């Protein structure tokens, strides 16, 4: 196997490198990728189209929002998949062998506990900031959602899984995850129902007469980011909770 692997790797590496002299120079602003009308368009017209300074957010949630919707679905699938694979249901014991004795996390340290108590609210606040401020600074639904999920994970690490699950029980996080995707695709369907193509947020201005198309786009982007954050935070916690407890959702690390 080692030899097969080595040969495959050398062959693949050679293949990848063989095209290297055909590459544009590093940092070349006029390489086909950088100078293509597509990326020029994003840089020049984002503001005009939606007034969002962070082009990455604009491209993510608007121009290529279709991709992002499926990206959210991928996250959802990951959570559902882990539950489908690992979750021990029906009260059937998992049959897992007792794990070897570990030192980590067995005792809940007072220092860790206190730190977490101080940290977690800040973390959650920061997560909301990241979600909401994705238009103007790095961040958005994914990053914020992960941080939000991480705050629950931190709870679980510091206090054990059960207290964390009290705050975010299984039924709730599964629902949240689905609702997140519903929010995202709901924005798309709303556009569809108003007679435009899927995810064409501009048309949503008819719902709020005081705004124009660009603003409608901007607000819709925030909306879908919130949907993303719902799914991502719920699923990140779900992944951790299942993996840490071998699918039993008890005990944990």
């Amino acid at each position: 196997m080692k030899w097969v692997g080595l040969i495959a790797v050398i062959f693949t590496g050679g293949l990848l490198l063989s095209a290297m002299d055909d590459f544009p120079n590093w940092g070349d602003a006029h390489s086909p990728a950088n100078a293509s009308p597509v990326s020029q368009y994003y840089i020049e017209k984002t503001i005009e189209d939606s007034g969002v300074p962070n082009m990455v957010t604009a491209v993510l949630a608007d121009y290529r929002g279709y991709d992002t919707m499926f990206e959210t679905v991928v996250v959802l699938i990951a959570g559902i998949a882990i539950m489908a694979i690992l979750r021990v249901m029906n009260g059937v014991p998992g049959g897992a062998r007792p794990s070897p004795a570990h030192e980590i996390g067995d005792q809940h340290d007072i220092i860790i506990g206190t730190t977490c108590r101080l940290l977690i609210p800040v973390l959650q606040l920061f997560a909301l900031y990241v979600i909401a401020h994705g238009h103007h600074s790095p961040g958005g639904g994914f990053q914020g959602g992960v941080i939000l999920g991480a705050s629950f994970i931190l709870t679980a690490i510091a206090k054990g899984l059960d207290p964390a699950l009290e705050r975010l029980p299984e039924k709730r996080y599964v629902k949240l995850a689905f609702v997140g995707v519903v929010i995202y695709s709901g924005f798309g369907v709303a556009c569809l129902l108003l007679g435009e193509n899927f995810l064409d947020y501009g048309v949503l201005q008819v719902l709020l007469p005081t705004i124009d198309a660009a603003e409608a786009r901007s607000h819709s982007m925030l909306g879908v980011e919130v949907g993303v954050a719902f799914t991502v935070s719920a699923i990140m916690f779900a992944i951790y909770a299942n993996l840490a407890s071998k699918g039993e959702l008890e005990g944990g690390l």
Partner: protein
Amino acid sequence: MAEQYPIIVLLVLLFGALFVGLAGMADRRVCFPLTMTALVLAVMVSVGILQRVISGGVIRYFVGGWSRPVGIGIELRIDTINALVLLTITTVGLLTALFSFRRVQEDKTEKTPLFYVLYLLLIMGLSGMVITGDAFNLYVLLEVSSLTSYALIAMGKSRRAAVAAFSYIIMGTIGASFYLLGVGYLYLRTGTLNMMEIHQAILALDGPSSTIVVAFVLILVGLMIKMAFFPLFGWLPNAYSYCPSSTSCVVAPLMTKVGVYVMVRMMLTVFGTEWVFENLQYTQWMVGIAVLAILAGSVMALAQVELKKMFCYLIVAEVGYMVGGAWMANHWGMVGTIYHIMGDAFMTLCMFLAAGIFVKQAGVVRIDQLDGMFRKMPWTMAGFVVGALAMIGIPPTCGFFSKLYLIRGGMESGHWGYVMALLISSLVNAVLFFRIFEIAYFGKKPAEGHGHHVDHSEESVIKEARPSALIPLLATAVIIVLLGLFNSNLVELIERSLQGSEVIGTRALSSKGGLG
């Protein structure tokens, strides 16, 4: 509403999954009706799409309305070939969902909603892959379908299911990553992700570009892993044979076929056949490997004692058929390949449905346990026989006609090795299936079976499958025959699509006519 069909077919499946997830958690009984509703709607919409494409030509749908400049948004692009494959996918999905009815409820009750969510998202991922016109979006949907299939396979009750799923994850990730890397290389050189735009950019390139060649090779290798092409098929037999029946019935017919379809799409639309066949001199190599794939798959299938494993190796051989056909640089080879994508999906479905029924009703895993099946389950066997005849290539099933077109392509382009391999594999299939028939037909001889009183005792032992399992099987058998009977209509559609302006850059496919 009709112009929104391309997105609606996906949304129906997506919302089906979401509702199953939300409502199914509360009440498990709504899962199945919701799933069926979503799939029936999806089939209806795909029929609508097909009609629209046939009458009105290519559908271009710009998600978010970002149509100009092309490539800033994501485009869904449906020509006749996509529409046919889309219809195949949704139909297979519907039939298998029906088949899964009791099974899932009996298997893992608590996980029923999860199963259906994953199932619908798998069908959605595959459908999305087929209709998208964006190279990166294809990757995302590829991952959607891969992740769901990993999970569905790992849900198998067999101890080995998890091991099989793990190696599938590793191989599948390598494949998908290669595809992603290939798209990256393409992007580096062309600056766009829209398939048509990439094609234009490749045409506009001055001089050969090693980046594009490497991109093509990477995408090809990635897809070869995904479609289990020789010699990268090691993950397939375990993954498909240890998963639950209702999973194998949807994964086995669709995953590899969609892989082949994406390869064909890459060759036709993204790179263009002129570039693929004239710039790269890979034709001989690829057809050669396809021959090896066919022979290896057939020989390995002969050596199997387990029913599902045998079918898995037959899939490997069938993938060889299609890759060889696509790479012959020949009109009829391509037509045969596209036709075979559809035909083989239903043939494989038929095989796995029958295998699922055998496992369920009679606990049959190995071929030699099949004795007396003709008497015990005549209807199941009837459906199975039709599928088997199609695999062998007996007219008027679709298997015969795809072989006819593929062999014609092979003869016209002078790939005699491929023609031979196809015939040998037909013979091997004949041996395989008649071995099964023989066992299933003879069974144990009735002790004193004389006169017509035997007829009564024969019926008393019938242990036929439930209608929810039988209907999909028989429907598949009917579809197999219908695909065969109406193959000229289908081929006409495919030809029109290949020759017309729908699929660009097919001029390099040598035209119809005499032997080359």
